[in-house]
């Protein structure tokens, strides 16, 4: 039996399109076209940068959430981590580029600590993810209130200016940071950790029998997610330039919406981080489009929810069509 005798067919075009983030990309582009038609100025570098600045906190929060969801988990501590990092940034501003770097390290460390607690509770003590992270979220919110009991404070000037600016008057810094996170993820998903993350999300038992260190992977999924929330809080502070002990709360539910909108299965093992980032971007762009269409902001939630249901139903429909073709 010669090896050359067997040629396996390449995957079909359709299955490539169905995979990953194609649907959400298409949705985003369609929405962007609508936006540009309404607001021709939206193509300017300044408008694009401001869109990025608006999007990045939620996009990063959703990216972290996506990692936990891929491992078949839930992470509510997001709201707590973003709030703590935001108030720390506002109460203890560190000036200059060095200060910004130190602040970044602090934010990442806060996220890593909270993530480690989550991971320990969920992976090693086997507490349900929703209960464990609910508890850490409540604790974190309490800590945030201790640091700053009412909205106020000022974020370091260097952070709030430089991180919302453009390089060469064109490339938004926040976009670069988001891009860096996405690129790191694309590398990470090719490591043992990334492969294991998908494996334990799809079938934890089989993964264990295949020799994957399930508990360790689950633990580090929470730690990594926590660090990304820390980064989200850092970027949120740059954008708002002030602190609020409840800054993270609006991001929590929207992060789940973004993950689902990006086609990542809430039952784990399917989807990705980039698609969730695009889901977040779509939700934020939808807000802008509605605003520029003159729709009262009170309706924003209704539209976001409706888009979510339609997108999830649509992707389920496409998956079913794809499966039928395969049989």
């Amino acid at each position, binding site marked *: *039996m010669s*090896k050359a*005798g*067997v040629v*396996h*067919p390449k*995957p079909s075009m359709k299955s490539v399109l169905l995979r990953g983030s194609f649907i959400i990309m298409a949705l985003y582009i369609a929405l962007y076209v609508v936006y540009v038609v309404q607001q021709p100025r939206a193509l300017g570098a300044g408008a694009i940068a401001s869109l990025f600045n608006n999007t990045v906190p939620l996009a990063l929060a959703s990216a972290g959430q996506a990692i936990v969801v891929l491992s078949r988990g839930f992470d509510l501590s997001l709201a707590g981590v973003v709030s703590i990092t935001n108030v720390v940034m506002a109460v203890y501003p560190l000036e200059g580029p060095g200060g910004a770097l130190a602040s970044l390290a602090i934010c990442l460390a806060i996220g890593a600590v909270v993530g480690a607690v989550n991971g320990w509770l969920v992976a090693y003590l086997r507490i349900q993810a929703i209960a464990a992270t609910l508890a850490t979220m409540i604790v974190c919110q309490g800590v945030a209130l201790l640091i700053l009991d009412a909205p106020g404070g000022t974020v370091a000037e260097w952070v709030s200016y430089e991180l919302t600016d453009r390089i060469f008057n064109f490339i938004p810094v926040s976009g670069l940071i988001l891009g860096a996170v996405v690129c790191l993820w694309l*590398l990470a998903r*090719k*490591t*043992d*950790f990334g*492969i*294991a993350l*998908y*494996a334990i*999300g*799809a*079938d934890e*038992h*089989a*993964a*264990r*029998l*295949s*020799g*994957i*260190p399930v508990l360790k992977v689950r633990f580090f999924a929470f730690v990594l997610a926590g660090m990304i929330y820390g980064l989200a809080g850092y970027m949120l502070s740059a954008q708002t330039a002030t602190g609020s002990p409840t800054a993270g709360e609006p991001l929590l539910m929207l992060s789940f919406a973004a993950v689902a909108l990006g086609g990542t299965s809430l039952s784990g*093992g*399917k989807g990705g981080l980039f698609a969730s980032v695009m889901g977040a971007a779509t939700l934020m762009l939808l807000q802008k489009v509605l605003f520029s269409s003159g729709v009262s902001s009170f309706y924003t939630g209704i539209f976001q929810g409706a888009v979510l249901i339609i997108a999830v139903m649509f992707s389920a429909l496409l998956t079913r069509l794809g499966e039928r073709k*395969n049989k």
Partner: protein
Amino acid sequence: MLISGACVPAISEGLELSVVRVGKSYGATVALEQADINLRAGEVHSLLGENGAGKSTLVRILAGAVVPDCGVMHLHGAPYRPMSITEARDQQVSTAFQELSLVPNLSVAQNLLLPRIPKSVFFISSAAETMRRASSMLARYDLERIDPAIEVSSLPLADRQRLEIVRALENAGRVLILDEPTASLAETDWLFGQIGSATDRGVAVLYISHRLAEVREICQRATVLRNGRTIATVSLKEASNDDIFEMMVGRRDDHVRKHASSALKDAAPRLSVKSLSNGVLVDASFNVRPGEILAVAALEGQGQRSLFRCLAGLEPAKSGSIEIDSREHSISSPRKALKAGSGIAYLPEERKTEGILAGLSAATNIVVPILSTISTARLVGQNAEAEAAGPEGAKVELSERYLSFAIGDLSGGNQQKALIARTLATGARTLLLFDPTRGVDVGTKQAIYSAIRAFAASGGSVLFYSSELPEIVQLADRCMVLYQGKIVETFEGSAIDEQGLVAAMIGHRATARLRAMQ
């Protein structure tokens, strides 16, 4: 020939893996009491036993998935005590699991190489190298036709089983454990060829299968487990099938029928099932008469679950008809099953997940199906519940003081009593009981048996499945044996004995008959 003594025999006899007095308990449940087994290099050794004899626990211990509580294991003369599957694999002991350990959303290649995916630079895995190694691995085992790039979930079950075996073969330098490797393989040529080349390399193979014909074809020796203990290790050339069945079942003269059948021979059947097919189940036809207790005996996964779930309205049947009191009924939900003719009530398999409503009292649990009949103006008082539940509980000897307890706080035995009281309370004249005494103590078993007998004596019909053969021998008026989805044999009255049942359950009768026909 009984194996005894804790000494470690010399490697010169070709002994690869020796297991001495290994045991494992989960809380009060003893999964494996004391198992001894010796595997020789280059030999295929079979592990035989009924359901629950401890086979899978022993496999898990050898595979490194479970750490034993006691006992000693030696691999090639050195102590062997793997704490994880990876550790076992590092010592060249590898297992193909019955439930398949492939991750569905990873590619064939990734699955074959887990947990060590080849790297290109740094920690980044190399897709090209992964593919290359996987295809050369597939080629070595004559499976070039499987594309290493596709996701495992898109493969048919038989190919997944082959991959599971390939992965085990690849990592088994010393010991290869195959747990039901032919469960989804239609033919054994490929597998037996691979086992042959493994034994040629001096690998010791442990082969677990309930198909005795297969075992005789490939294995030289067999170890029989019963109730978590090693009964004997025999040479398969010298032991007859009857010897093996006897070792699997044991001589238990005390389990004989102690009551006369209350079946009404001349009455029209209460339940008549015609060519029912669904899932594994193929073309099942049978009748249950009023007053009759009909048992179903089968190994795991032979279609008994589909049969019960179809009759209970939990699964739609693919084809076939169900007649109750000579009238055809379509049963699409448990509620319809209760209302179909004289009614069918179902006792589910999983007490914790399908049966009890843990937070509610035992009394409420019993009266759930009849709430509408005991309510006054749609309101149900606690007293009304207790009054209605009391007599039903008494039928299964459920002590009255337990009625007010939350059922989740009761022992497993009392929970099961309450659930049987619930099926009795429905007033249905046909009961479907799926493993009614699973995991309950002896006293509770007797109470359940008398409740079932009393129900039959009052003219009710019972269809029950049990994983315990003595129970079937004691209770059943008739017993059908399911094998690979078909009713292969029906035993009646005193013809129901454990050895006969076991022979039919492992397909021995069916294959013997096939041979006779050829």
